[in-house]
């Protein structure tokens, strides 16, 4: 497998899809968060790959840095929400967070 743009993109795609499936299948709220991290990471791989292999240049890396920072922020807030949810419901099962269902 050659280390070219498409190879990176495919890795990113796998990460992305894994993240999405993770989000779709994990009932544990933290698991869903991990899926989100995977998805973001897949996007990061793409950014870095474009930065490396096209004339996008530095901007891709800058973007991926921002993504990392925002992912950290997102993780902090989401975790706080998850903790709150756990405090109120004594479970972390996202399927039980359906009070607003139709």
């Amino acid at each position, binding site marked *: 497998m050659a280390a070219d743009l498409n190879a990176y993109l495919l890795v990113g795609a796998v990460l992305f899809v894994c993240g999405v499936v993770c989000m779709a299948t994990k009932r544990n709220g933290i*698991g869903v968060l991990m899926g989100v991290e995977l998805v973001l990471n897949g996007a990061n791989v793409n950014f870095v790959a474009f930065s490396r292999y096209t004339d996008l240049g530095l901007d891709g890396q800058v973007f991926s840095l921002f993504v990392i920072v925002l992912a950290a922020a997102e993780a902090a807030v989401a975790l706080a929400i998850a903790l709150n949810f756990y405090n109120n419901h004594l479970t972390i099962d996202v399927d039980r967070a359906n009070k607003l269902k139709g």
Partner: protein
Amino acid sequence: MSGEAFLFTVFAAMTCFSAIAVVVSQTVVRMAFWLVISLGSTAALFFLANADFVGAAQLLIYVGGTLVLLVFGVMLTASGPYMKIGTSTGETVVAGLIGLLFLFVVFASVSGVNWRQPVTASADNVATGAVGNTLRPLGLSFLGARPESGVLPGEDAAGTGYLLPFEIVSVHLLVVLVGASYLARAKRRAVPVNQVV
């Protein structure tokens, strides 16, 4: 197959395998473990792609910070050792099928696109950050200067540099930290009723 390609193959395989392991794992801590492997391998991929600062940031922030945070969350929200919240088989199968379909769609579209000509590493594009050490140009770009574009600070900062986004992200991070610590404060606890795992 060059050495770089070999390393890429190894790390890419590790990345993908761990990512799939994350999906397949049943307990959260195992998921976290695999996620660490996956993200670490991704960091290695970043190093391979000459984005050493991004890779280091990935390691420091993602693996060292975010994931530790997640594991904290796991432990704080675990109602028992090795807690598993299972998913029904049908759901898993459906999700897997849809995931495969999605993967196919993404593969198809990625390979279907004719990307612009890949830039090969050369002495000329080291400074652009495409190849080589990117720490200095990255730092300068965060300060609003884009030397590789020949723009000095104050000349056309708005269009090229990342000073403003950098500041915004900094403030954003601060706000998020305050907000998250406020949200996560120990508050009243619900009466344990009908605890269902």
